[in-house]
């Protein structure tokens, strides 16, 4: 099956916590997943399913209950703490806002497992830190305090820190949370570039399904009873995404690659028009609860036309004809008619 030896592989992994009374609290069992060199893996699943616990276990931050985690064919438990820190780095959801901590100093903390007792940076270390900052797109930010940069820049600084740590595997817990849309795309683009250009295995959890589907090489879909893994397209074609929100109203749209709320249609309406004007008028009509059909035999017909940024809409309802210059006006009018 596998064409290359996986960098990270789990065998019958069971994750969870050991409670004070020595009882086990199992979060998830029978985990058999893998990630290859240079792969960007997105971990997707609902809140509370155990994504963070899985990532923390893979990052050697907590012990597994049973089973194996193999890093380059070596059991993770056989690695000393410092050795593990040289192969896996981690970015948590916890925001770092330490006053007076400069971006350069934060990134150079990534050299921790490689430097001497005093943490002295040699010329080689400094070069690596500078290179990490460049790869994360933070040139010119070296002397800025991390408490005074934006959330996205801070997240990039945390990623730069993992680069300075020079690990083959980078694990990030929801790196796109708290970011605005361009910020989310930027982070995932950087992760994608890093996986492709540096051959690192990068694993991240996210709720931004759309971005994950477009950018990740592999998806670990963490359902309550099993983890399904494969290329995002495989999961779309086999209709596995629909299983995530099975108990909610959300439906997975296989064309858009995203979840949508289903709409109950109050009526039908005919639409004629072309291109973008037609596409967006369709969206507007569906939003107000009208199913769009070909103009042909419908009782009510919308004709839309856009030229040089001017929208022209004609509505024929029975014998009445109306004209509108914006979709907003049209939707107000239609809402009035169909609420009767």
């Amino acid at each position, binding site marked *: 099956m596998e064409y290359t030896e996986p960098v990270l592989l789990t065998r019958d992994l069971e994750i969870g916590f050991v409670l004070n009374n020595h009882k086990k609290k199992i979060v998830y069992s029978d985990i058999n997943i893998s990630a290859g060199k240079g792969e960007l893996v997105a971990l997707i699943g609902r809140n509370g399913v155990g994504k963070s616990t899985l990532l923390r276990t893979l990052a050697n931050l907590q012990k597994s209950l049973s089973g194996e985690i193999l890093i380059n064919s070596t059991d993770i438990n056989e690695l000393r703490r410092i050795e593990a*820190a040289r192969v896996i780095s981690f970015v948590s959801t*916890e925001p770092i806002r*330490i*006053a*007076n*901590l400069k971006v*350069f100093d934060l990134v150079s*903390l990534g050299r*921790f497992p490689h430097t001497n*007792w005093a943490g002295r940076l040699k010329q080689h270390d400094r070069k690596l830190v500078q290179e990490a900052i460049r790869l994360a797109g933070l040139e010119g930010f070296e002397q800025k305090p991390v408490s005074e940069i934006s959330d996205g820049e801070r997240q990039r600084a945390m990623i730069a820190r993992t680069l300075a740590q020079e690990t083959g595997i980078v694990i990030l817990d929801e790196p796109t949370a708290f970011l605005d849309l361009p910020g989310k795309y930027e982070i995932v683009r950087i992760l994608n570039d890093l996986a492709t250009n540096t051959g690192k295995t990068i694993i991240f959890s996210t709720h931004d399904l759309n971005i994950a589907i477009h950018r990740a090489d592999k998806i670990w879909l963490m359902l309550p009873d099993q983890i399904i893994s494969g290329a995002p397209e495989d999961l779309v074609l086999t209709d596995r995404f629909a299983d995530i929100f099975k108990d909610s109203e959300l439906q997975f749209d296989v064309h858009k690659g995203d979840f949508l709320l289903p709409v109950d249609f109050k009526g039908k309406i005919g639409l004629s028009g072309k291109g973008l004007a037609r596409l967006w008028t369709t969206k507007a009509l569906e939003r107000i609860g009208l199913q769009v059909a070909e103009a042909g035999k419908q009782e009510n017909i919308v004709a839309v036309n856009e030229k040089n940024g001017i929208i022209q809409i004609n509505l024929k309802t029975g014998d009445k004809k109306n004209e509108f210059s914006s979709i907003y006006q049209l939707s107000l009018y239609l809402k009035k008619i169909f609420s009767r």
Partner: protein
Amino acid sequence: MTESKNIQGRLLSRKHLLIFGVLLIALVLLFLLDLFLGSVRIPFSEIVRILISGEGKEEWVTIIYKFRFPKAITALLAGVALSVSGLQMQTVFRNPLAGPYVLGISAGASLGVAILMLGFSSLISASNILNIGNWAIVSAAWIGSGIILFLILMVSMRVRDIMTILILGIMFGSATTAVVSILQYFSHETALKAFVVWTMGSLGHVSREQLQVLSFSVIVGLGISFSSVKLLNALLLGETYAISLGLNVKASRILIFVSTSILAGSITAFCGPIGFIGIAVPHIARMIFNTADHRILLSGTLVMGGILLLFSDIIAHVPGYDTILPINSVTALVGIPVVVWIIIRNRKYAAFS
């Protein structure tokens, strides 16, 4: 661009060196000024001459070497030790208001001294209270803080959450303080006064032999502190990141707790609990050096701590008068404005998470 690349990541920038230079000069000047103040007026030039050649008017040489010099050194050591342990506690607990006594070290020392002075006062006659040897007080304080340290270390071996350790430290401290209050309630007036005087702190009761012990302890404590700068830097990011960088968090905490206890514990044993220096100085150092790197911050805090306690001691002498104020009140009056200012400017200089 190439120039800025060379500056990036160099440990000490030119600016930092300049600041260190200025601070060291201030430290030396304050040290000399501290020697200058006292009930007997000795000309400044004579002090310098006595210090350099060891010769001068016999009476003055005695005053300088027997009294003022040990006291100034004690002030220096106390300032350095308390500030460095304060810095360590603020980093380990990721709390800007943590200080050397957050682990309950001062409460433990008070309990030791209270049991000695107040508890035994019912056994020995009241007139003998004041004859309790200096060494006995020091030992009692050391034992008291040692017991609290032991409890804290036991807790930190088992508990991982740093906030739990912080809360337990505060609880141990409060429990000890409660016991001390009970002892105070049942004790003789003379014993009570002697104890209250101890709690006010004093830099002047350290004999030359004791000073040797104190210096040795502080040097050992500082040695451990300097050897843990890398650990402190990693702990700055919090436990999760510290582990992911390959740090043994429990062992590091224990190492740092041990050095804090040696530093703060010895100072408390010899000088009584001296407040606020340990909380205020690290913040001043952070602000002056504008860095979070402990390799610079630790040295900066150390020098700044010496400066601030020498300054407090000079104020305690009320230049021009023969009165000496209790050092603890002076450090509080010097330190509290700083702490207040930290709270007001919290977002900028003391945000830890």
